[in-house]
């Protein structure tokens, strides 16, 4: 199975910001979730993949074509993009927008688009600027899905939306990847959303990629324990990936295999793991 996205040694610096030595692969047919705090470099990474900004060094391949390949423009036809804000001409309606898009993408499918408009219950005659935020995002997603993409790049596409709409969108992403050669890269700071749909999780912290792992393997690898200080000292210090000391005890993230199996572990969510790792600064 080849990779839909391959990133090697990617660097990008701005004054006061550094995205450093990123190595990341998105295997075809899977969903990779990009997690990280605000300003960690998620959007910068996605813009670099789209060649919307230039990189300092490193190589990026998208759908088997190098970013520097003169043919890269064609690859963009196969990539559906939804950014955190949809930028369409304000006065266009969904129907008028379609005429623009039909001229932009050679594989534009009118029927698919119309079906999404119905499915999302988007008002056809309302101008773009009069749509609610949720509707704008749905419209952007309808556009992204209507030119037969192989890869979706979604930057905070679900943030700022209510749980119902978010769930609807997650279902749609799930459906999209029923096809074996369809892949998704999605960034979000809503970790629970990513936990629901992703096969892989990549965690960017202050411009560095702290980990990129199979989601279920992560949840198997780490566990949260709550214990008193005495118990803490009895455990192998190597077993800890992060800890938080409180007034009445200690909460810690541990490697499951390094603690005795009799230890009671809490139900551990991806969010717990990310939070502990971000604060502990540990490497996965």
């Amino acid at each position, binding site marked *: 199975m080849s990779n839909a996205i391959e990133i090697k040694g990617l660097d990008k610096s701005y004054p006061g910001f550094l995205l450093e030595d990123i190595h990341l692969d998105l295997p075809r*047919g899977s969903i990779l979730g990009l997690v990280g705090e605000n300003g960690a470099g998620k959007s910068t990474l996605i813009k670099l993949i789209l060649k919307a900004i230039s990189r300092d060094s490193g190589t990026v391949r998208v759908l088997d074509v190098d970013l520097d390949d003169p043919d890269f423009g064609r690859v963009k036809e196969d990539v559906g993009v939804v950014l955190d804000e949809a930028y369409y001409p304000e006065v266009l309606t969904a129907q008028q927008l379609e005429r623009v898009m039909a001229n932009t993408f050679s594989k534009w499918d009118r029927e698919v688009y119309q079906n999404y408009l119905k499915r999302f219950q988007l008002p056809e005659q309302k101008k773009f600027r009069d749509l609610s935020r949720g509707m704008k995002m749905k419209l952007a997603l309808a556009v992204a899905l209507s030119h037969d993409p192989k890869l979706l790049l979604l930057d905070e596409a679900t943030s700022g939306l209510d749980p119902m709409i978010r769930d609807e969108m997650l279902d749609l992403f799930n459906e999209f990847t029923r096809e074996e050669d369809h892949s998704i890269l999605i960034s979000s700071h809503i970790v629970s959303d990513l936990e629901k749909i992703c096969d892989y999780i990549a965690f960017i912290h202050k411009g560095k990629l702290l980990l990129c792992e199979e989601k279920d393997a992560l949840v198997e690898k780490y566990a949260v324990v709550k214990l008193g200080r005495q118990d803490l000292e009895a455990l192998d210090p190597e077993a800890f990936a992060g800890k938080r000391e409180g007034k009445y005890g200690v909460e810690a993230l541990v490697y499951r295999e390094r603690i005795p199996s009799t230890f009671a572990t809490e139900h551990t969510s991806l969010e717990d793991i990310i939070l502990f790792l971000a604060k502990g600064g540990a490497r996965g």
Partner: protein
Amino acid sequence: MEIFISNTSSNPIYQQIYEHLRNAILSGALDEGDLLPSIRALAKDLRISVITTKRAYDELEKAGYIHTVAGKGCYVAPKNTEQVRAEHCRRIEEHLRLVLRLAPACGISLDEITAWIHKLQEEEQGCQTPSK
């Protein structure tokens, strides 16, 4: 066939799928030659990771419960009576181990356990006789 995945269970998800499918095969809910759902379809329907589902199928194949026909899918393998027996033995052992772990905590000796088992067996037989 019904499969439930518990996110709060301490069992990893791939193991839960493995056990569901294995039990369905051992109990006869799935017959020899039945086509299993494709890895991708099952993963998407259960809203779990494709990799995890693949791992469960790989384990099932390794254990001989299913076999893969390239380009077609995964089928339930002919039932191997020896294998079923081995599986039952494994479960008996699991339960016995639990007994051995719990017994010392209550101060129960091995002899007492043996006596207990005999008593239980009499009870089981007693239950069965009237119905015969």
